[in-house]
């Protein structure tokens, strides 16, 4: 192994990121090369100096201000989601809207059992291409009417 190659590998060697073959090759080179061995010692010194800069904890109010800031703009979060996430969300909202519509039509609540949820899901998947505006309107209307139903809980399933 040449010195330039050995020196390129010294950091990984120090970090324990070399595979066994590489480690053996570097160690072999170091044993017979005082120049590279001196470089290794210097790198250890650099690492020790870097360690003088210790980790600072996050400011105590960081968590609180992040959460406050998110609660202030809940609507923007939905609008800025990437397309894949939004489509998944749209399907879920449509599923919920369909279930709520059924619940409304048949005037019942307790029968909101798994079987209906699955069927509604299948039914609603085919509406994935429906326009954003229509679905938003449907969902918001449904949510207004049925805000008391445990919608959040269902979304988490």
């Amino acid at each position, binding site marked *: 192994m040449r010195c330039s190659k050995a020196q390129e590998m010294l*950091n990984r060697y120090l970090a324990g990121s070399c595979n066994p073959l590489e480690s053996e090759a570097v160690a072999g080179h170091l044993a017979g090369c005082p120049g590279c061995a001196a470089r290794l010692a210097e790198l250890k010194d650099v690492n020790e100096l870097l360690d003088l*800069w210790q980790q600072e904890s996050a400011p105590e109010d*960081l968590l609180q201000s992040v959460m406050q800031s998110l609660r202030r703009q809940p609507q923007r979060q939905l609008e800025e989601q990437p397309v894949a*996430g*939004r489509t998944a969300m749209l399907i879920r909202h449509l599923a919920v809207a369909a279930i709520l519509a059924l619940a409304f039509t048949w005037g019942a609540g307790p029968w909101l059992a798994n079987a209906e949820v699955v069927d509604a899901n299948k039914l609603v998947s085919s509406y994935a291409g429906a326009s954003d505006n229509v679905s938003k309107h449907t969902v918001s209307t449904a949510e207004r009417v049925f805000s008391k139903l445990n919608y959040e809980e269902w*979304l988490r399933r």
Partner: protein
Amino acid sequence: MATDEILVRRAQAGDMAAFGELVGRYQDRVYGLSTRLLTCTEDARDAAQEIFIRVFKTLPGFDLRADFTTWLYRVATNVCLDQLRRRHRERLCSLPARDESGSQDRLQDDRAGPEELLLDKERQQAVRRAVADLPDEYRVALVLHHYQQLSYRQVAACLDLTEKTVATRIHRAKLRLRQRLLLGGESDAL
């Protein structure tokens, strides 16, 4: 304690409490990264907040099969790099505002204060300045690996680079630090 995956899943569905738990879990690491990349306490705090907001907004697109920590660092690094670009390195504000000046004064006033402590403080400042003066692409790789303890593979995934490029950047960063901190000179050749 809930795993990251469970919390991420719940947060993706809009569970704010679950997201809050994730923030609590990662805030020190994220703040550590932003302090070391931006080398300015005020900017680092703003950046950490922006990072978590961006994480929340993009979380629905996160693929649960991927490693959350690497993904989080990727978002965090991008926010910091954006901020560095905005700043155009015109003002690297000095470090750090929180407790440094007070404690340094105390050390100087305290007759019993060991000189070594003062020396350590000075050396720490020298290290901060040297890291701050590294080119951004070297500093990012070095900080992710050395301070955030990501493997070369994780750093590569974070930065969209090959492991070889990551190794080269870390190597060059340390050569510069060696030149400046151990040999007492600049090495602009690298």
